[in-house]
């Protein structure tokens, strides 16, 4: 298609349908329309050629809301597939707000990966943020509301950093184009931070853990597909080969493993696993060779498929049983055989069992790390592979479907859910069997042989002996039990540490441990915890109506202040 207009851009079907869905009362028409959207969008994508760009004047700048190259195409197709699966999975939902939000969210993710300038990127970035929070709030619990608010604030902060960075770049270079950004300027760091929040860099990762498990069954499937992958895309575009990413990635693959192992909420386990996997991609982008970038992008592709499959199967369990804690589940294979099989396929794929999707991409990054003599990073990644198999491959499946029988007898989920899961599972297997198809989409030429003795044998050994460890652990009954708990993470800093420490710091300063300390502790306890509400709440000092007298006093004070300043 040569004539590019805004209406034929691939994100448009999403946005138009999102608005339309709000007004369609018939659920079958709505379902048909929603399912048609990703297909239409994919069709539009197929029509486009690589290397075209659409420009549009805005506020005196040339914006490029649509620009294509191989990297964009890969993510574009990926998001079309993912949104099709997610929509199919969520057809039973009656709440039209969720559908609208989901379509806006998916559409803006598609838009974001084709954005050719930072302002367009910022636009899609913000639409993603604002629409995705609805998927969390749709849970309609108080906790979901508070969590959604935290999520929203963090995501908007990322958007604002992106905007600030974009403006700094515009100010210094006069151009808004979104290409290689690099870390030469301050703006580069500001934007890296913006991307880093979305990509869940260590210490910035908490929103993933906080929000995904809180969202609805179907919302989590949408959420797991887009936000972090858009960030990976943006990093690949802007920061390929930035060394700092290697180390960030290395930390990122390791630390979530331990958390995933002790976590009880299975969707939270998957969230930790997601961070670890994104760490693989970040690492690959940081290494920056062609093979590494290919590996990172291919991992992203596979990851969307198998992670959505896993979120769907956990979602089905939650949907059918109403429980998601590992300690509450077990033995579900008896009544949910299809879900079990599909989940096992997803687990096999994420653990990179040969002949499944995950195996294709994982080796590329490891090989690239070795090529670049990054021994330590290579060991980290290898360690993470082993960990992934334990917490995602074994733990998820074992505790839910096998393990100790919980007595729950829930049936398999409705057909459309099974179909969506089946589709994702089929893709996992298909990519595993015919990696060439995926390789054709990758941004660089691929000369990487997936199935040779070395890779297959090494991986099988690794997996088998992790499994062996698990079996011995189970036989000896030494394994850590799954306990109901909250595990502290970075959010502890802002949810607990800051309020508490300020409160206690003053207590310690005061030598007399008697009345004084208690007085100050109480004072500060109220001050910090209730302080904001007290000052800004409806009857807070700063928000309630002051008596006229004190207002006039302020006038006098300010006038005095000005006069003093002006006279001297």
């Amino acid at each position, binding site marked *: 298609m040569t004539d590019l207009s805004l209406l034929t851009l691939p994100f448009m079907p999403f946005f138009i349908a999102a608005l339309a869905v709000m007004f369609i009362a018939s659920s079958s028409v709505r379902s048909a329309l929603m399912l048609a959207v990703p297909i239409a969008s994919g069709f539009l994508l197929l029509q486009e050629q690589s290397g075209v760009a659409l420009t549009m004047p805005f506020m005196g700048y040339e914006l490029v809301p649509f620009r294509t190259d191989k990297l964009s195409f890969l993510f574009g197709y990926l998001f079309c597939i993912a949104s099709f699966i997610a929509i199919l999975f969520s057809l039973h939902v009656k709440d039209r707000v969720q559908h609208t939000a989901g379509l806006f969210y998916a559409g803006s993710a598609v838009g974001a990966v084709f954005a050719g300038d930072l302002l367009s990127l910022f636009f899609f970035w913000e639409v993603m943020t604002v629409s995705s929070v609805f998927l969390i*709030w749709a849970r309609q619990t108080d906790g979901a509301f508070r969590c959604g608010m935290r999520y929203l604030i963090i995501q908007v902060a990322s958007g604002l950093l992106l905007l600030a960075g974009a403006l700094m770049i515009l100010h210094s270079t006069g151009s808004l184009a979104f290409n290689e950004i690099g870390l030469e300027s301050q703006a580069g760091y500001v934007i890296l931070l913006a991307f880093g929040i979305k990509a869940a860099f260590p210490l910035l990762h908490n929103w993933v853990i906080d929000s995904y498990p809180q969202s609805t069954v179907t919302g989590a499937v949408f959420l797991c597909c887009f936000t972090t992958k858009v960030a990976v895309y943006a990093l690949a575009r802007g920061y390929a080969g930035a060394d700092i990413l290697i180390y960030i990635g290395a930390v990122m693959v390791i630390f979530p493993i331990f958390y995933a192992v002790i976590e009880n909420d299975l969707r939270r386990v998957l969230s930790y696993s997601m961070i670890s996997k994104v760490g693989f991609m970040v690492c690959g982008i940081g290494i920056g060779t062609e093979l590494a970038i290919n590996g990172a992008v291919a991992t992203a592709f596979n990851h969307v498929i198998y992670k959505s499959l896993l979120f769907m199967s956990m979602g089905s369990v939650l949907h059918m049983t109403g429980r998601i804690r590992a300690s509450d589940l077990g033995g579900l294979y008896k009544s949910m055989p299809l879900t079990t099989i599909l989940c096992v396929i997803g687990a096999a794929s994420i653990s990179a069992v040969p002949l499944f999707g995950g195996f294709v991409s994982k080796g590329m990054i490891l090989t690239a790390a070795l090529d670049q003599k990054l021994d330590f990073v290579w060991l980290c990644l290898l360690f993470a592979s082993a960990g992934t198999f334990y917490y995602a491959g074994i733990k998820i499946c074992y505790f839910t479907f096998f393990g100790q029988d919980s007595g729950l007898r829930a049936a398999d989920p409705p057909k459309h859910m099974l179909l969506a899961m089946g589709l994702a599972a089929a893709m996992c297997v298909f990519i595993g069997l015919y990696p060439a198809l995926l390789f054709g989409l990758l941004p660089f030429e691929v000369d990487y042989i997936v199935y040779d003795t070395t890779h297959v044998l090494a991986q099988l050994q690794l997996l088998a002996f992790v499994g062996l460890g698990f079996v011995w652990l189970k036989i000896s009954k030494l394994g850590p039990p799954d306990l109901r708990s909250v595990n502290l993470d970075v959010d502890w800093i802002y949810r607990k540490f800051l309020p508490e420490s300020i409160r206690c710091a003053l207590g310690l300063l005061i030598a007399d441990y008697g009345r004084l300390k208690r007085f100050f502790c109480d004072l500060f306890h109220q001050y910090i915890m209730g302080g904001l509400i007290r000052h800004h709440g409806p009857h807070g000092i700063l928000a309630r109506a002051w008596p006229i007298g004190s*207002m006039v006093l302020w*006038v006098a004070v300010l006038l005095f202040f000005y006069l003093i300043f002006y006279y001297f």
Partner: protein
Amino acid sequence: MMSAIFANLPALQVILPLLFAPICFLLRKRGAAWLLAFCVSLCTFAVSIALFMQVSAAGPLSYAMGGWDPPWGIEYRVDSFNAPFLVLLSLMFCVTLAFSYKSVEKEIVQPRHALFYSAFMLCVAGLLGIVITGDAFNVFVFLEISSLSSYILISFGKDRRALTAAFQYLIMGTIGATFLLIGIGFIYMMTGTLNMADLAVRLPSVMDTHTVRAAFAFIIVGMSIKVALFPLHVWLPNAYGYAPSAASVFLAATSTKVSLYVLIRFTFTVFGAGFAFGAMPLQPILLVLAVTAVFVGSLSAIFQTNIKHVLAYSSVAQIGYMVIGFALASHAGLSAGILHMFNHAVMKGCLFLVAGCVFYRFRSARIEDFRGLGKTMPWTMGAFVVGGLGLIGMPLTAGFVSKWYLIMAALDHGFVGFLIIAAVLAGSLLAVAYVWRIVEVAYFQAPDEVHENGKEAPFILLVPAWFMALLTLYIGIDPSLVVGAAESAALSLLGSTP
């Protein structure tokens, strides 16, 4: 005939509403009074458009009131700074009147309707007069006309707290206006003239005196009260919160902006940027106050339980943005500030109109009234979401354009600029909190019995709300008109400094 009208456009602009206000009162009948007011508003709007076209085609326009030549007589002066304000004011005049027919019917007891419309027209006349006049003392007179009528408008509110709010506003407003009067007296004492252009010529020779400095201080503080700049903002939330919806819409969209207009006019046209920002440390003071305003306003907005109060506190914060732009005193900063004055008027107008729609249905606008509105009043909530996105500064809304220009302006100011950017961004974050909190309530909380049976607001109330919402989007998508107006306004202000 036509030529006579065209020659006297500046006078007509003010005189139309001023003249018809008493007639409106004499009509007594609600429908007739409304119709008259609405016709006048349309004429006023047409006049303002004509003036705007004239000014953009032929440059500044000077009109000698009553044939007395300036600087002796009163001069009406329309230049590229105030012409867009005239358009804004008369536009809001039309929109609010279109809204008020139904809304006033519900919120004000019958015999007072005509009174409301005439007070409203007087208020508009006063604000238009402030903007159009080129005479310093005339500013004071019009300021008092608009203030007195807005106290009346506020006291129309059903809640008894409207009375105390009006009284409070009256005291504060009178102090502010009197300060302005003192300031004008001081500069008259030093120069013997009241014409702004003439003042600008004569003031530089006496700049160094204490009297002029004191005059400047009095004018700044006096107008800061009317602008509701922190910490002198306390009258605002109750005044907007308890006023009848139609009055809140108009006052929130225009009144503080006009006061800020006066502040900018005196600072740049009369005193000159060199004096205000060179000899006087105005910049640091204003910046500190404005940034504080952003935080205090936004934080307070988050914890309010009444939507009108949320919006009013958000106004306090947004005024902070405008003052930041003004205090940067560069061309970019000033245009960003002026731009935000327009954009904020449009967005806040939209949001207060929505609050008015909800008020129309439920007789109150508390947050719990918004429960389930996403389903029962989808169009109303749609407009709210658009306006709210504007406040947050989402791309493709007017708010984004302001934020963009404000940040661009701040980038020229080195380290201070970074702090300002940080404040602006933090302010947007807080805006997310207070706007999206309401959206969550509207879309995800189940309505209780009272609100379950709520239905969509009447069409006639939705039209103005959506008009403003679409305007928000239009400015966001094609900001060239507003940006152009703001930039030429800034240019005319900075160009006219000696």
